[in-house]
């Protein structure tokens, strides 16, 4: 046929020359699919925004162990539940071991999706076995209410790292003295200590408890240990979008690093 075929790149004077031809834009989705490495930031489970400051990462890092402990104040259970909330609402399975008195209505109010929550309230003497088993299947395991030998703690932390799960341990301010266990923080990557707090909304014979301010100190046992202090309102006052509100965040590189 005698039809003139326009040569590529010459029909439109505005297009780049053959040497610097524009590459077709690779859709972002494909780029993500073919990326060979799993970056550390992709190994995060979502967490409520207020915790990002404390944890030093925008989410819960898979394979890490978090210890929530009480130092003379209330609020560990609420903090632990708030840690689960964001991840469970996107369909991540959470297992809870040993907390037979857990207030599940409160868990719902703090944003935990109960349809992805499974409880083993009374593991009896199989506590560490059950925690280890759940680490195989769940992405987050919240364990509390029991004492463990240091060897078991280490073993469970290693298990969490192997299975790319997050282990959250809860120790401390149970309502009854009989249940108070030793703080379980050995081997934890981040320790969140509840050092103070306040209940808002309650007067003398009037009002009701509306929110609970929890003052936290996070100690990170990373390459550069540091302490971060923040206060969170649990649950947030209605109308505010984030479920955890940082009121004051103050980074203090200090005593932990000197140790």
């Amino acid at each position, binding site marked *: 046929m005698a039809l003139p075929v326009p040569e590529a790149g010459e029909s439109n004077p505005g297009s780049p020359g053959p040497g610097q031809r524009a590459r077709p834009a690779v859709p972002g989705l494909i780029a993500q699919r073919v990326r060979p490495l799993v970056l550390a930031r992709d190994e995060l489970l979502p967490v409520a925004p207020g915790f990002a400051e404390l944890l030093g990462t925008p989410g819960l890092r898979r394979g890490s162990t978090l210890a929530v402990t009480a130092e003379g104040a209330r609020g560990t259970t609420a903090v632990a539940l708030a840690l689960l909330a964001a991840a469970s609402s996107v369909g991540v399975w959470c297992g809870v071991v040993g907390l037979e008195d857990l207030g599940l209505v409160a868990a719902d109010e703090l944003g935990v999706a109960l349809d992805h929550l499974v409880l083993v309230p009374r593991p009896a003497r199989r506590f560490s076995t059950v925690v280890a*088993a759940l680490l195989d299947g769940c992405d987050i395991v919240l364990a509390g209410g029991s004492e463990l030998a240091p060897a078991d703690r280490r073993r469970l932390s290693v298990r969490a790292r192997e299975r790319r799960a997050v282990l959250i341990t809860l120790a401390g301010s149970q*309502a009854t003295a009989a249940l108070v266990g030793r703080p379980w923080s050995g081997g934890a990557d981040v320790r969140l200590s509840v050092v103070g707090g306040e209940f808002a909304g309650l007067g003398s014979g009037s009002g009701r408890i509306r929110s609970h301010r929890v003052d936290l100190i996070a100690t990170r046992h990373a390459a550069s240990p540091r302490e971060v202090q923040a206060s969170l309102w649990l649950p947030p006052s209605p109308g505010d979008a984030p479920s955890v509100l940082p009121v004051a965040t103050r980074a203090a590189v200090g005593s932990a690093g000197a140790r």
Partner: protein
Amino acid sequence: MRDPTPARTLVLWCPDWPVSAAGHRPEEAVAVVANGKVVAASVAARRAGVHPPQRRRQAESCCAGLAIVPRDPGAEARAFEPVVVALEGFGALVAVRRPGWAALATRGPARYFGGEESFAVEVAGAVEALGERLGLAGASPPAVERATLAGDWWRIGIADGPFTATMAAQRGCIVPRDEARAFLAPFDIERIGSGELADLLRRLGVTTLGGFAALDETDVLARFGPDGARLHRLVRGLDGRSLAVRPRPRDLAVETLLEPPATDVDTAAFLAKSLAEKLCVRLAGEALACSLLEIEVETSTGDRLARRWVHDGAWTPVLVAERLRWQLEAWLTGAGRRDASDGTTERIGIARVRLSPAEVVPDTGRQLELWGRPRTDDDRVARVFARVQGLLGPEAVVRPLLVGGRGPAERVRLFPFGDPLPTGPADAAQPWPGQLPCPNPTVVPQEPYPAEVLDSDGRHVGVDGRGTPSGVPARVAVGGQPASDVVAWAGPWPVDEQWWDTAVRRRRARLQVVTVGGEAYLLALDRGRWVVEGSYD
């Protein structure tokens, strides 16, 4: 138990069907071979030491003069079709697992023929007569001492459920109701149907089905997973599968119209595969697994044929296509032949294929492989929880569900993991006047423990019928600890529940207190005594 009573089932089993279908008699030394391996051998050949899945060369070396026949699945299906048609004369609900195995629910026909024994004899007579017509029967008349429920090429058994009935068919006997477990006990563990599980159990020292049945259910679940537990139920005679009619699951069926009609089996089977993919996706979306599949085909001349196929695992497109191929091989050629004899020259084509699950079960992890297959996330979770349930008992692993109520404890109900959560009216979302507003206590003790509420003079604080406290709460002691000062409090909020029924009527008054030590409690006054309903931790 969740399992229904097993349905009485008749199984017609043709041992070495590939051999019989190839037109060989049990006394001839014949082996049917596919891919270089023996898939079936005649009685004579097996006596000489030929056994599947031997290699062809091994088989030839242990049996001189062994005739080797290549496998022809189409021919097997064609040869079995008259047998299925004969069974359909006794009851409409014939289910076929593969050529050489068909099952029939006996409840109706057995009553008609006056008992299972006479029914079985009737079926045996029909099958034997059929065999004579087709040239499958033995040359010599059946020996007198032979059981009436076994012929040269067929066996019949009746028992509770298809699994036990298959075993009964191998013996050619009828197992009375509820005696399945005792009947199965002496069988070798190989008969369990899962080679890997049988091998493992043998190494663990369990050599008979009875030995497997004697194991504890939770132990089996823990060690072998849901699939092992299913087999464990089978060997205990709790075969939940049934062939009986039941309400058809709504609109799960998929169908396709073939235009122009497919005239060869391969085309139809190929189309059926994509149809089966659609069905599998739909079933997975409903979280169901199909245990009995009905394949219905319609020809261009309006003839319809439906067959029901049973399969123990999950249906895959390949399996469905294979079943359809068997069905069509048998029928299309037969129908084509019949029409040709009528003088019709037009070739029969398949105009419509419809796949409908005749029986579905909730897919609770039965599709898990025991070993090997990569699992999806929820499968993995289910497996882990099954393991913990094996450790601690099924009630130890629970899932919460919020229900309607006022106090923090009565708004939660716990269900063992694996049990279906009730999907009733969502009364959790309904207004409950007097419900404790958000936030609820994060620690709710299983058993409320006692507390003391005292006013500034050290007197017990009570609440009168109008909900007015007798004093201002000044000190609170919980759980036997020393009293501490109250810095803030609110309430009491009276709740009068089920006042219309004097037997269960409950009046309470709730009080929130915060102590000087920063502890917050939800207290309730119940029959004159304060208890701690929850604490904010």
